[in-house]
């Protein structure tokens, strides 16, 4: 008898599960989902690679590459917190599953060159 209030609430409240994929789950605004990198803002300072607890970010300073290993990334947002140029942001939608361990290679475009001959592309 004491289960009656719960039973009535459930009877008229609709199912507790979401009709996925017909009705997808909208991510919350400040949820941590996946890493997004903006090539135009990165200046290869290396803060993200130094602070990453999972060693998921590598920098190649000669080729001006920013490399992410998504299978190591734990989406903790430490890289985004420490980026002085806000080149990394953590977007709310959860990353899609992947079947191949590939690294993501991006090119930093805001690196300041030493010497006056070349300016960064």
């Amino acid at each position: 008898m004491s289960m009656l209030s719960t039973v009535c609430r459930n009877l008229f409240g609709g199912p507790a599960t979401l009709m996925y994929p017909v009705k997808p789950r909208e991510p919350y605004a400040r949820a941590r989902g996946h890493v997004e990198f903006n090539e135009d803002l990165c200046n290869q300072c290396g803060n993200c690679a130094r602070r990453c607890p999972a060693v998921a970010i590598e920098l190649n300073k000669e080729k001006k590459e920013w490399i992410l290993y998504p299978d190591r990334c734990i989406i903790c947002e430490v890289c985004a917190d420490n980026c002085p140029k806000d080149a990394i942001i953590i977007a709310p939608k959860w990353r899609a599953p992947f079947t191949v361990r590939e690294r993501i290679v991006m090119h930093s475009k805001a690196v300041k060159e030493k010497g006056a001959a070349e300016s960064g592309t």
Partner: protein
Amino acid sequence: MAPRTITPFGPQHPVLPEPIQLKLVLEDERVVDVLPAIGYGHRGIEKACELNEYPKNIYLCERICGICSAIHGMTYCDVVEKLWPLEIPPRAKYLRTIWAEMSRTHSHLLWLGLLSDAFGFESMFMQYWRIREKVLNILEITAGHRVTQSVSIVGGVRRDIDDDQKKHCIEVLKDVRQEVAALNNVLVNDYTVKARTVGKGVLSYDQAIALGNCGPHLRASGVKEDCRTQGYWAYGELAFEPIVATGGDSFSRAAVRIGETIQAIDLQLEAFGKMPEGEIAAKPKGNPPANEATSRVEQPRGEVFYYAKGNGTRNLERLRVRTPTYANIPSLLVMLPGCEMADVPIIVLSIDPCISCTER
């Protein structure tokens, strides 16, 4: 004398949440002796913490356990802050308290679901976990992730809870409180639940203290002992009294956790009302000094004890974690002999075993 057999209970068993092996020495259906074996989840986290710089260890320590992960991270930050010592801002203390109690709510709801499932009361398991989804959703809205929230840093917290989120959390918590109270009534008054838990796995007051128990397991034997009475973080300013039961059996342990679930919701609502404005983090100066520090915090399963030793570099010299289930497992060797084989799952679940915490 009846012939004795040894039956392994675990490490893989449908009723166990985590891998522990208990070799039950049985005479017919009665347990005569228990031989535990742990080590199925050991990952060497304490050693890994020495190899990392100290800010990165927060993320390692959180992953010692999935259910108590928020409090592991916060206790690590607490013990490292004591090395300086570093005082965190008042708002950070309240935020840590709120997230710790939110974590306790979801952990106890998980346990109540598992306990119901252990009897075979599957519909109750589904109901408790349906309510738990609401708590996990507010954890995701405020902290960022449902499990392994990563909100704490050395010096305070990383995120703030703004007014919209606070209003939403309060609404959800009031709703959760009402639904949980209705379900708790059912669990506590049901004849079958009482038949399977009352008088099973009895530990007296003196036995509980002698065995070194902690947490709700200890409080169910009548010992009024809770780390939150120390008044760390914001607990000193909230109206908090430990919940104690006197039966010493599995039913008392369930009753203590049922009371603590409602108490955790009430503490969150109170903390939301009293939270001051201000900064959310203090910046630590330099490396952790060559010093030792300890921290005792109340996790959902009991008292977790952290010891840290700094040596002036960015790496810690030593981190030692003594988790509550590590202290509660020896009590199984006293509770299980004498009971029937069908009671073993209920008694083992009633200590709320978290073997990934035990073995790190």
